[in-house]
């Protein structure tokens, strides 16, 4: 199977990902496509700019795929994520899972998407209709310290970052 990057600057192709993951032993194919919507938290959104730190994001997505396949007993999971400026309706993430049966395949797909959203260094900046921009508040990555964040600096942590 031809390998491909999990972080891509060009438009994502669902057809290509389905073709690349074809497996005749699987009777179930589950697909998730995350697209850019035109609103968030009551504000009209014009577009999103995605960025990623590829040196960590690439191996991390691959590690998540391997974890999910093992945990749910499915032979195939793949996720790809776009970076750059995306207009309303464009695909930001495509994830597929293939398994023998639907139960484990649905579960694996959900786990894959949730893990990519919460564990991979990707950020999105919203361009709002009022002309302002803001980064979407996200999930703090757990480093190996597992120490209280406030111990690093003299200030207390703030849970939301909005520009």
């Amino acid at each position, binding site marked *: 199977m031809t390998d491909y990057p999990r972080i891509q600057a060009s438009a994502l192709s669902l057809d290509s990902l389905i073709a690349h993951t074809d497996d005749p032993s699987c009777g179930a194919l589950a697909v998730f496509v*995350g697209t850019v919507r035109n609103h968030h938290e009551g504000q009209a959104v014009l577009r999103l700019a*995605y*960025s*990623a*730190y590829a*040196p*960590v994001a*690439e*191996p991390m997505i691959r590690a998540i795929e391997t974890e999910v396949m093992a945990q749910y007993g499915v032979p195939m999971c793949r996720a790809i*994520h776009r970076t750059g400026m995306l207009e309303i309706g464009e695909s*930001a*993430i495509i994830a597929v899972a293939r398994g023998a049966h639907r139960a484990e395949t649905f579960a694996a797909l959900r786990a894959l*998407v949730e893990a*990519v*959203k*919460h*564990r*991979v*260094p*990707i*950020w*999105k*900046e919203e361009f709002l209709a009022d002309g302002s921009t803001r*980064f*979407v*508040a*996200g*999930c*703090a*990555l*757990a*480093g*190996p*310290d597992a*120490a209280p*964040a*406030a111990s*690093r*600096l*003299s*200030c*207390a*942590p*703030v*849970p939301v*970052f909005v*520009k």
Partner: protein
Amino acid sequence: MELNIVCCGPLERLTGQYQLPLQLPDDATVADVYTAIATQFPEAQDLLTRCAVAVGSSLVGTSTPLSPRDVVAILPPVAGG
């Protein structure tokens, strides 16, 4: 030693630079990077408390010692998908 720290996502916006040069002690750890950035950019202090750090492709702790050839990236809270 001088290190160019990769500032990702909202941190790049706050510092104005994707690669931020910092002058650090030869025995600097990751904690010193946080302190140096917070000193130079006080408005980044709150965000820094919720950031992780990668050296190369691995997430590391604040006590991790650094060397001049390390590629260090500060990773704010993530929001993919």
